[in-house]
């Protein structure tokens, strides 16, 4: 019962952040000359209003859950993976390659092989920053981000050269189409919603149990909490860091594979519209809990579907959602302070300790938030 109560409390807190984000975004909309109520109503309609809308929501929820999981897993070991897009792209290109090369195998083998190759590619790309962090101490903030751009450029190179099929359709290039056996089936007619959503949800549950019950999950959590303590307790900190980044990259690669097999059915140059960064926001809102990531991923999938629909009918740009996401991120981090305040005995007590007057006391240690 206690756990349910805690879960509901968290749900309410996160809902409060979402509400605040809607309010601030609403003000921005108002200042730009739009009617927030109509816009938001359009969002809801575009996300849940019809079977097609629902399909769109699920179509976007799948990759967002997966990238969210990737970020969440890394974060369990206190590792920041902000290069998810690069891992996603490499996973996608690997999956696509298997998809159009393996022409004679039965469906399930082809799908499995494609996704597996995708996970391997993403996993390797994610492990590199992990290795660098473990052996040189290089900040993964920088390395994952740099490898992000490098990874994307690698796929550009591949799709413009070795695996190019058609010339530009518009301005993008694409690889050969995958064989039908490799396709992830569509689940809602006339939309791109596909079986990837089931994979995403299943993986969320799997990761939840791995993190909570399996040895490797335990090690990740301890390393994530206190690396000195982990080392003292006999955990191989280096190995754990690398493994967590490996899993994280593999999940990102899986996200890329799912997008290829389920939606595009080929590798399309630069197909990801910032899915990697969406994953960061999804995971933050879900407090890096894999099950929460499912809910959060569906929510942001709905936002994506809704805003795309709204952009078609009105002129409200999709960048609106990006700002909304930023407010959520800032809200989440402020929430961390809020929790800290409550632990220290309420806002008044916190202000007495940290406020203007207290700060001029000599032995008050000035801190920047952690």
């Amino acid at each position, binding site marked *: 019962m206690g756990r349910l109560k805690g879960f509901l409390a968290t749900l309410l807190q996160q809902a409060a952040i979402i509400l605040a984000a809607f309010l601030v975004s609403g003000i921005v909309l108002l200042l730009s000359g739009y009617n927030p109520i109509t816009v938001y109503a359009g969002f809801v309609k575009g996300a849940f209003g019809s079977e097609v809308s629902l399909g769109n929501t699920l179509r976007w929820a799948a990759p967002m859950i997966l990238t969210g999981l990737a970020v969440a897993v890394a974060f369990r070991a206190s590792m920041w993976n902000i290069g998810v897009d690069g891992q996603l792209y490499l996973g996608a290109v690997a999956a696509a390659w298997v998809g159009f090369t393996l022409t004679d195998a039965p469906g399930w083998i082809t799908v499995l092989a494609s996704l597996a190759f995708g996970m391997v590619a993403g996993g390797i790309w994610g492990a590199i920053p992990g290795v660098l962090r473990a052996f040189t101490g290089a900040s993964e903030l*920088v390395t994952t*981000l740099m490898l992000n751009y490098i990874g994307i450029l690698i796929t550009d190179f591949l799709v413009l050269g070795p695996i190019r099929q058609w010339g530009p359709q518009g301005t993008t290039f694409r690889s050969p189409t995958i064989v039908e056996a490799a396709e992830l089936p569509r689940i809602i007619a006339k939309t791109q919603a596909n079986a990837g959503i089931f994979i995403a949800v299943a993986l969320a549950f799997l990761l939840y149990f791995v993190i909570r019950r399996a040895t490797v999950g335990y090690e990740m959590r301890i390393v994530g909490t206190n690396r000195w303590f982990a080392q003292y307790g006999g955990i191989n900190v280096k190995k754990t860091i690398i493994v967590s980044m490996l899993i994280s990259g593999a999940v990102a690669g899986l996200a890329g594979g799912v997008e290829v097999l389920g939606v595009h059915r080929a590798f399309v140059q630069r197909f990801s519209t910032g899915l990697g960064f969406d994953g960061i926001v999804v995971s*933050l809102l879900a407090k890096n809990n894999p099950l929460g990531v499912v809910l959060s991923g569906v929510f942001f999938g709905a936002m994506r579907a809704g805003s795309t629909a709204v952009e078609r009918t009105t002129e409200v*740009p999709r960048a609106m959602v990006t700002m909304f996401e*930023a407010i959520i991120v800032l809200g989440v981090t402020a929430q961390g302070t809020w929790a*800290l305040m409550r632990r220290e005995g309420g806002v008044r007590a916190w202000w007495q300790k940290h406020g203007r007057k207290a700060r001029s006391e000599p032995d008050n240690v000035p801190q920047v938030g952690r």
Partner: protein
Amino acid sequence: MDGIFDINLFQSMLRLATPTLLAALGGVLAHKSGILDISLEGKMIVGAFFAIAVAQATGHVWIGVFAGGVAGALMGLLFAFLVITIKTNDVITGVGVNILADGLTAYLLRVFLGSSGTHALKGVAGQAKVDLGALGSIPILGPILNDHTPLVYAALLLAPLIWVVLYKTPIGFRVRAVGERPMAARTAGVNVEGVRYGSLLAGGFLCGLGGAFLSTGSLSMFTEGMVAGRGFMAFTAVIFGYGNPIWVLLAGLLFGLAEGVGFKVQIARVALQQQVVEMLPYLITVIVVSVTAWLRRRRVGQMAALTE
């Protein structure tokens, strides 16, 4: 390889390094006052956008550049408020500010400039290049340093200037004290929060200038995603230099060189794929940050380096 390493390369190196360099110098201020600031990218983005937007609105490119700096400073203010006063997590807040900058500029680009993806400055003169006159005829150094727009020179001069301010003036001393021993600084009566706010504001202004140079320096347009990780390269330059402006200057020039080589290779049509050379700046960043960290680890100890 002949057509690549020539005077022209080093001339463009200065021009290409300037945005990252300006942002890195801004990052130095934050770093020296003890703040982990990864929102340099976001500040550059708003700087780039508002430079173009204001230049278009007022008809003067330099007013735009100044506006870009102000925009960066305002982002710095937001970041400072969250991290210093509300005491939020510095990394997440930095990520949030970056996302905000990205979304805000894309949104404003569409809603107020009416364009989707790119806005080229129309009917406004760009930045004029400076002719160094006699200095320009010095062999080798002359042509390299000549014929740049003013911000390039500003960036080059700011590095030693900031060095002097940080290490030879009372203000700089206070900044460094706040960064190294905030407790002692507080006891000595230094307003720690005020100093940090100041460095983030000034640093934000510089980042904004860096972004403004990117959009108005040679080309005159703003494109979504044009900053392309330069803010993070600037962050790396700061780490590489341990916050010392002179080392940061060198790192910035290195990144500019990498980018310049990339362009040269394209033009010379050497048989290296375009993407490979585009990767060069990012690869160098990875190497730089790994080597820097490894060197630090040897000083500080393995576990300490593993812990954040």
